[in-house]
């Protein structure tokens, strides 16, 4: 059984701001981290490795420094790592990214579709949740989203799976046959820490780097050229002005809240 987990290096978005004068992103001093959702996808991959001896490959698309997230994944127990990297991929939106990653996965798996491809639910920089579904289309395999628990019957290709998928109104148990693409929620098993031995192995491991030629990409489907969506402007979010602010405690505060609600006609007291 071969499991591929896609991981993304993202800026720690809590610190990203817009420079109000130039209207451009201020990335200086913003730390790069593994997309938190992807850590949960990796954990599901590691569990399948523990249980079924699956081979686990991690794939990341990004600049050379994204190798860091791949080494971190290797340290936690992934078997091999692939970085998809080239200037030609620059400016890719979710369509071009989905195509590029799907091509890279096929290349990394010797032209075959792996049994299972896992993504985090979404990446915290873009928050689109579109690349997992997009890759499922390019690979032509079933898609199951928002998964929190994965069970697979032993046997690899053609094996049965049963997963819990969280919808808006409840949880659905979904069954199907591999291969498949799934996106994983944080409500799944907590990510493990890398053992020291893993970190040492990861530091020495080779990371395969693939460019547009290696993955046999059609030049018109990658990068800016392969991206239907264009970002026209960026701007800081509008801030709603605050109202009254008072410093009170205990019963006085309670009274102030009730008075305010009454004044607004929102509740009637007594």
């Amino acid at each position, binding site marked *: 059984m071969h499991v591929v987990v896609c991981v993304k290096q993202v800026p720690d978005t809590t610190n990203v701001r817009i420079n109000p004068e130039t209207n451009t992103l201020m990335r200086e001093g913003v730390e790069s981290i593994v997309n938190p959702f992807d850590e949960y996808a990796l954990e599901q991959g590691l569990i399948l490795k523990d249980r079924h001896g699956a081979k686990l490959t991690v794939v990341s698309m990004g600049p050379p420094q994204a190798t860091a997230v791949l080494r971190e994944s290797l340290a936690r127990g992934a078997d091999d790592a692939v970085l998809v990297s080239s200037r030609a991929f620059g400016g890719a939106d979710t369509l071009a990214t989905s195509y590029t990653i799907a091509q890279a996965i096929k290349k990394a798996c010797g032209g075959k579709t792996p049994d299972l491809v896992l993504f985090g639910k979404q990446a915290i920089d873009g928050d689109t949740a*579109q690349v997992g579904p997009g890759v499922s289309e390019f690979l032509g395999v079933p898609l199951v989203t928002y998964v929190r628990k994965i069970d697979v019957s032993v046997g690899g290709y053609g094996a049965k799976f049963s997963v819990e998928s969280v919808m808006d109104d409840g949880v659905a148990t979904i069954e199907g046959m591999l291969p498949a693409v799934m996106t994983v929620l944080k409500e799944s098993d907590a990510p493990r820490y890398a053992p020291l031995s893993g970190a040492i192995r990861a530091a020495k491991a080779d990371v395969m780097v693939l460019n547009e030629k290696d993955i046999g990409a059609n030049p018109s489907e990658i990068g800016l050229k392969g991206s239907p969506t264009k970002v026209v402007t960026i701007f800081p979010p509008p801030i709603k002005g605050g109202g009254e602010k008072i410093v009170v405690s205990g019963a006085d*505060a*309670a009274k102030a*809240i009730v008075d305010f609600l009454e004044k607004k006609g929102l509740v009637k*007291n007594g």
Partner: protein
Amino acid sequence: MADAPILIDVKKCVGCGKCVKGCGFGALSMADAPGVNKLGKVAEVDPAACKACFACVPACPFKAISQVKAEVNGTENIESYKDIWVFAEQTDGRVAEVVLELLTKARELKAQRGDGCKVCAVILGSGLPPSVDSELASYGADKIYKVDAPELSEYEANVYVDALSQLVVKHKPEVILAGATAIGRAFFARVAVRVRTGLTADCTALKVENTLNKDTDVMQMLLHQTRPAFGGNIMATIMTPNHRPQMATVRPKVFKKSEVDSASAAKCETIAEALKLIAPMTKIVKREPFADGVDIAAAEILVAGGRGLKKAENFAQLQRLAELLGGEVAASRAAVDAGWTGIPRQVGQTGRTVAPRIYLCFGISGAIQHLEGIRGADTIIAVNNDPNAPIFGVADLGIVGDALEIIPALIKELEK
């Protein structure tokens, strides 16, 4: 050799040589061309010398020189795409609220286009009750495309992708909107890839405007899609100029719904679509509603708690407060991560977007991700002991004080 960035139309060139003088880089010259025109000369460009300044374009009085546009990747016959579609998500024959909000917005976009395009609802299901038609009509659908087939008896991403993609190819909508729900976000993304177009997720503002397409220099009615990115720290406006349909998802409660008059609703027509669909690739074997069945997005009054409540027992007091006010308990991500309550009650970018009349919150500092989720609240009352907490920037009433003291006092006051 690279192609030149300009194109010389030899049928228009009279051989006058004005362009040669107009070029500051010596890239143009007159070549002998007997019989082509009276002077027997035509302009010729040296691609290696041309700096693509395009000074020659206006220098030619005969409009023989034009700028070569880079080849634009895009959908063929883009003009043939019409109408604004709303994906009418339904579960067990009940249309999702967000669909009505989107139909209302689609009417606005139709008015902005002003060219008589139609607002169409697309509904997929099996054994759909007739009540869905009248509901979609009363929120402004001019036309309903209905696919009623046994394969669609429950949501299965792969069959949904097949059905909607077939309809897109057949009817060519210019715009399609869907709710950014668990269903909408997942299968819609795959539809966008299948029909090879752009999709913008979680839009918070949409408008149609006559816009210059910089790739083709043509004025077009384009959908301006605005959405938060980088955890809500940044807003971006995104367009899909050269591909159709232009696809976008919108979270529930971002737009307000409103009905049309019954005369307009009566004009709505339903088209039953018989499609040959793939067999479902996965099967739902069990569906379990959330344990407490709460829908905070629909609540009129929310009483929310965050990290500042320190422990589960303190958070639990909010339940009594919510009962007294006739509302529901909600939580920040910190409170959910701490295990004080479940994910269905989480408000914010990674949780639910809410739009209550009253949002009363305790011990929530108001990270931007949280504020993004409460933008639709009418009245916000915040209690926090940090006078600099960002939540006070949006609160209608801000109380700087100890939430742990104020919650029991407020319960007492309301019990009076």
